[in-house]
């Protein structure tokens, strides 16, 4: 695996990857600094029906919503929820999926195989459908969205790692390590894991965008963070009643979702090009 500075330098040379990196940084900064950037931090939660559905202006940069709250501030604070959901869900999926994949791929024991068949079942059903079923059963809350996303996303990592490990096992350096009597645990953690790290990082970055999109869909369907949380998907869902007259209501959270998903996807693609020469497709120069 390459060092971080090298990776970054190579990433910046690729224009679209640099854009993705920039968008992700932008959203992260916005989320962290939300209370200071927001012109009306109190108007995220505070409802004032008298200011209802005001078009964008100097006072209300992105207009106001149906309860008279400031959409700009809500979008900023929404970034926190969105990133938090995606980070925890992808993190949890990594924690579940990577060890399962490593173990199943290395041991080739029937339990591992069985787990892979379970992951096949998960992969056969669209993630959103499974997530809807889980979130609906557990009731709408941020924790349940995270749970639903983690439970349905880990198979991606498990399959990825499993396939990589199976391939690596036949490599000469691993066979040499086995022949030298290195304990399997050490082989897996010190020789196999670093070699599958690149695809994991790429998958995690793309997965962030994917997970954010799914979380927004759940929010749109009313299964996300309950009100008054400024959840982007829910904001778009609310706005439909007032379209097309109040175009700003859906525009701001819609663009926000677009930016963050786009950012993570471009970044993921760029990372793949840099980290995984075997998969290099587009930017060969």
């Amino acid at each position: 695996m390459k060092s971080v500075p090298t990776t970054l330098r190579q990433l910046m040379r690729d224009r679209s990857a640099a854009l993705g990196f920039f968008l992700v940084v932008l959203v992260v900064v916005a989320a962290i600094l939300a209370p200071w950037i927001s012109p009306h931090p109190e108007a995220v939660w505070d409802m004032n029906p008298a200011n209802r559905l005001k078009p964008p202006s100097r006072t209300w940069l992105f207009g106001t919503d149906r309860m008279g709250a400031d959409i700009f501030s809500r979008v900023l604070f929404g970034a926190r929820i969105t990133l938090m959901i995606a980070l925890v869900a992808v993190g949890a999926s990594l924690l579940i999926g990577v060890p399962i994949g490593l173990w199943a791929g290395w041991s080739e024991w029937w339990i591992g195989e069985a787990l892979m068949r379970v992951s096949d079942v998960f992969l056969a059903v669209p993630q959103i459908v499974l997530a809807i079923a889980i979130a609906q059963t557990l009731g709408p809350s941020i924790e349940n969205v995270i749970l639903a996303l983690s439970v349905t996303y880990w198979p991606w990592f498990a399959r990825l790692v499993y396939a990589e490990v199976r391939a690596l096992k036949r490599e000469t350096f691993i066979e040499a390590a086995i022949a030298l009597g290195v304990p399997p645990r050490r082989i897996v953690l010190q020789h196999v894991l670093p070699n599958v790290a690149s695809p994991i990082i790429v998958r995690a970055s793309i997965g962030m965008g994917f997970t954010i999109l799914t979380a927004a869909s759940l929010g749109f369907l009313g299964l996300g963070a309950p009100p008054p949380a400024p959840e982007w998907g829910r904001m778009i869902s609310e706005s439909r009643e007032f379209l097309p007259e109040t175009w700003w209501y859906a525009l701001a959270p819609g663009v926000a979702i677009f930016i963050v998903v786009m950012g993570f996807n471009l970044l993921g693609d760029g990372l793949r090009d840099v980290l995984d020469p075997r998969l290099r497709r587009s930017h060969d120069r």
Partner: protein
Amino acid sequence: MPILRLRGTTAVARRLVLAGFASLALLGSLGQTATAQTRFVFANESDFDTMDPHVAFDVGRIAVRLNVYDGLMRWQSNPAKLEPWIAESYAISKDGLTYTFKLRKGVKFHDGSEVKAADFVYSLERILALGKGAASLFKTMIDPGKAKAVDDTTVEFTLTKPSAIFLAIVPEIHVVNTTLVKKNEVNNDWGAAWMSKSSAGSGAYKLTQFDPAIGFVAARNPDHFKGWGPKFIDEIEFRGVKDTNTRVLGLMKGDFNGLGGYLQADQLKRIEESGKAKVHEAESMRVMMMQFNTTRAPLNDPDVRRALNQAFDYDGFNKNILGGQVERNPTPLPNTIWGNPKDIKGYAFDIEKGKALLAKASAKIDRPLEIHFLTGFGQSEQAAQLFQNGLQKMGIQSKVIGTPWPTIVERFSKPETTPDISIYWISTYYADPHNWIGEMFHSSGAGTFKNAHHYKNPKVDALLDKAVEATDQAVRAKYYEEAVRIVVDDAPGLWIYNTKWYGPYSKNLAGVVFCPIGNGLEMRTAYYE
């Protein structure tokens, strides 16, 4: 004529519709019709979970009762008038205890058998035995076994005590075909399982299809005893469509011909401006309110409940969010009906006053309160959010949760499952103050959707009993006024507004006769121009 047109729906809805369509194809297509027939499709805010006319006494599911079933009397036109329906005439004994109804001859059930007095006796027994819907109200005035078929066309009800409202709720004794229901009984369940998805009525329309996930379809009964006008609608479909936007767009695109009347000003304006549909407007009575579950801490403390009453931005909601289409109603009784004390002010939006009340309250609020709004009713959701906001300013945490109407009604039946706070409406089920103040606060109604407060106050019970036993309106009004004062002071609920009726229909639909009881859902007289 395709019944599920896919234009004008959101992508998600479209996918859901497709899924529904696939399952329909398996079931045999819902509402497959000959081409020349006229159809009316109504988009209801909530689902129809049952077709049984004896277990529901609400507006959400009234379309079944009005179109598929008949009663002895029926509320008609506006202002609502009680008219003989299957009854030809009726007489009340001097002591006010015995009601005798003479039936029309030749009224037939959908299977061709004649409607007889015994069927009414069975229907009332069935209501009392099932104990749902209007049963809690009937139980306060009549015991099982007190209905009698004198002969085939005479039915007699003997009350336990005189009641000023018995006649008003007689329309709820929807007559069912005794032979048919008995044939489908399982373990003496009064045919409950079967009746929840079939019908045994005599009404203007005959149930042809029912799917709880979609709705019901009914075909015209050409032999209905009331006869038909020169023009009519051959087939009616009532569908549960929980998404406001899908309903409104569907009406504007012509997929739906009528919508439930709980829309707010923005939507009504949009419909009017589209030129594709029109909004019927009529004087009516419907009070929007919150019911607090008074059996559980901290809402068992009147001071906490009074404080909560100061946390709702009444003007912000009525004037800004609803654009002034409604009028503030400070009591559970509509402003426009008799029996309401004229001088009563009610509560105002005042956070500081609320905080002071909370400080002296004995119960402490140590958990987030659950505010339930009705799924599919945008207004009730926005009221919930606004209330949550007010509570937060008062230092009270709360959760806003959407629950479908049939589900929440089921939850009301027990104090343990009743939500802390539920936001909905009490419409007109009969034009009498008892419809609101009476049923909402008499202990006999505890557990129905009218009294989801589970409110029990012997003093109020006594006043309401007297109000029903008296016959003179002036005397009754006094009892109701006193009851209103006590209840408002005790604050088991929060009362927001009283409104007119705004019913959106297709532009070319005519003959919709609005009655406050039924909200314009009786389709017998409707036709396309």
